[in-house]
């Protein structure tokens, strides 16, 4: 409601990005830019992973780079200096609520069972993917020449794309938002067969667009979906 509009206005103010710059198109990736990042070239999955893990850490040092805004600081117009012990909530309660592990179910298309992973246990997308690879040990992570990474079942050659369901029930591609945001938003993971993902390619595009509109992160960058069209 009012908080959201406030958020989106501060977004563009702080990020310095025009709406047009961040608009998604179906054109060839490479035209989009990210505030504070290098000029765009075709980025594989791993590149986005790298980028997010870098930005993930800079979130914590948000005063260093005013462009990389996070949900928290965009909320209140002028946050007051924090006071000790206010609001009056005991440490036991604060710790218990904070450290609630983020266990999410992982489903694999075609496999009959579910696994659970604790997202809090990982530092970033790299670790998560490695862990998934170990878990569903039939996969290996195939490295493409352009450093794209996918999970591949070596026996059948099927490729899997990691997707997740966010708080709003929408299915997103893993890796398109900063790590911390992902941890917060992710409700469950699904390793989707590439072929299916292709069909959803257009839908996912739209979903990313929606995510950008709704969320307070101001550096949604174009996720190159070209590989889905293989």
């Amino acid at each position: 409601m009012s908080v959201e509009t406030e958020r989106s206005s501060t977004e563009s103010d702080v990020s310095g990005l025009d709406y047009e710059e961040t608009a998604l198109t179906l054109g060839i990736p490479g035209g989009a830019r990210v505030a504070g990042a290098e000029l765009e070239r075709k980025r594989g999955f791993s590149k986005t992973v790298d980028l997010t893990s870098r930005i993930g850490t800079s979130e914590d040092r948000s005063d260093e780079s005013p462009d990389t805004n996070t949900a928290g600081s965009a909320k209140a117009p002028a946050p007051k200096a924090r006071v000790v012990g206010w609001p009056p909530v005991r440490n036991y309660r604060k710790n218990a609520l904070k450290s609630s592990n983020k266990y999410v179910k992982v489903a694999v298309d075609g496999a009959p069972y579910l696994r659970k992973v604790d997202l809090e246990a990982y530092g970033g997308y790299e670790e998560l993917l490695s862990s998934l690879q170990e878990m569903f040990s039939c996969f290996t992570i195939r490295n493409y020449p352009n450093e794209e990474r996918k999970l591949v079942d070596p026996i059948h050659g099927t490729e899997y794309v990691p997707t997740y369901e966010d708080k709003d029930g929408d299915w997103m591609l893993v890796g398109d938002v900063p790590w911390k945001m992902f941890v917060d938003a992710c409700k469950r993971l699904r390793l989707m067969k590439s072929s299916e993902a292709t069909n959803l390619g257009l839908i996912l595009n739209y979903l990313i667009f929606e995510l950008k509109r709704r969320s307070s992160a101001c550096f949604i960058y174009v996720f190159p979906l070209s590989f889905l069209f293989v």
Partner: protein
Amino acid sequence: MREEISDMSEDDETGERARWAPDLSKNRSDDSDSGPGPPIGDSPPPFSDQILENVLENVLEFLTSRRDRNSASAVCRSWYRAEAQTRRELFIGNCYAVAPHRAVERFQSIKSVVLKGKPRFADFNLVPFGWGAHFEPWVKSFGAAYRHLERICLKRMSVTDKDLTIIAESFPLFKDLTLICCEGFSTFGLAVIAERCRHLRVLDLIEDYLEDEDDEVVDWISRFPETTTSLESLVFDCVSCPFNFDALERLVARSPSLQRLRVNHHVALEQLRRLMARAPQLTHLGTGTFRSGAGFGEVDPNLDLVSAFGASRSLVCLSGFREIEPEFLPAIYPICANLTSLNFSFANLTAEELNPVIRRCHNLQTFWVLDSVGDEGLQAVAETCRDLRELRVFPLDPSEDSDSSVSDIGLQFISEGCRKLRSILYFCQRMTNAAVVAMSKNCPDLVVFRLCIMGRHLPDRITGEPMDAGFRAIVMNCKKLTRLSVSGLLTDKAFEYIGCYGKLIRTLSVAFAGDSDGGLRYVLEGCTRLQKLEIRDSPFGDASLISGLPFYYNMRFLWMSSCNLSMRGCKEVARNKPNLVVEVIRDGVEEEEEEEIEAVEKLYLYRSLAGARTDAPAFVKIL
């Protein structure tokens, strides 16, 4: 949660102020002693009086209320002696109000001790580490004097493993150890208690902070005797390190009297099911987490969980529910109607997820929940839980500028549905005077009203006015009110109302409120039953502090931090009132500073028979 223990602040039974006029020659304190008494060491009474005293002792055995005992001891010397002989429970509301040896000399047949230490604002990191409240001198005195001690209950004390060892060694009949908001001990101390207190019935660890290093955790659960135990209550949800689950399962299996079990968050549903199967007689259960284990290929726990809860017909109190997976909640449906107490305050639930559970809890009297359920969730509570006596709504995000989903609307719902409400703690960001007024009218039985509007100085969200009118209505209409916490934008007017109408208030908590000294004066002069006053970040200065001089003896303590106090004012209080201990607490001071800082950041003053304590650290200056 143990309602009877967890809110120990509601412990006072003092009479009117006039009764407790200070008498320096007689040396009494409201907390530990009873009324005025003879100096220690007077000569024994004549023979005939001794017979009367013996008769009296037999009668006084039946007197359990602390207040009644205080009255009885004030009648005459004979009654004083008889009462001292027959008192079985020692209650000391401030461990520095009296010296251990004095308590032990007067009361010689104590079986149960309740001892409180740090001021409550220590819970919010306002009291620096190392301030005091050490249990050691007490346990040593008790160890020497009370061979028959059975129960120790401590709140906000610093307790070491060595102290726990002394307990285990000194009291052969020891039955009940309850530690609330304590720190300083570890699993090592727990192991000693488990191993050596062969008659242990209750081991309740509630919101304590344990000092375990990750690699030094002791398997204390395994140390309980291998034979059938007499355990009735085992509460350890605050012991954050992992434990030996198999040992716990075996322990539960050989504890037929076990009624209360609260485990920590290292227990998943599959394990919970096993525990419940071992103890179908449980009345109070803390589930730890409420999620299934992380493995794959597991048997679906749902089936067994349903039957486990179905078999636990005695359950009346449920808590835990950390890391909750709501899809498992239907398992508790069969017992919801039996529940009188439900603690969801660690469960991040939406209104939709709460609804099917709460709609079945018609008999709920105590309910703790997170504000994630929103006003809508509270509406469901209001419509179903007509018998509710205590409600606590905690913030999911306990930060000042968080978005809270509960507001005046939820409070309004509750006030309309839960007419028998006695105690409420409500965290929110948006509130109106109208809702608070409505609660004051709809819930006249309120004894405890604690409203925490998390944003500082926030006014009525609709009218933009201060929250004075709401709190005025509370103190006017809730004639049984003994505990009040205020928040939001408040002027001196609010305190004028509190002083005028809040005649029964014993505990008052104030933060970021008031305009001037006048505010505090109203309270000190008007609230004749005031025992505990804690104030932070409010513009009250020396004049108001000094205006309270006639009243401080009748109070347990006064805490003021980040107000406008100076050393001049505090020294004047100390000078005028020798039986008050005036502590000025500074932050981050290691050694004595050469020059004195005039501004007083933290003041803690309390009445005491013991005088200035000898264990004060360098950052505490006693005037």
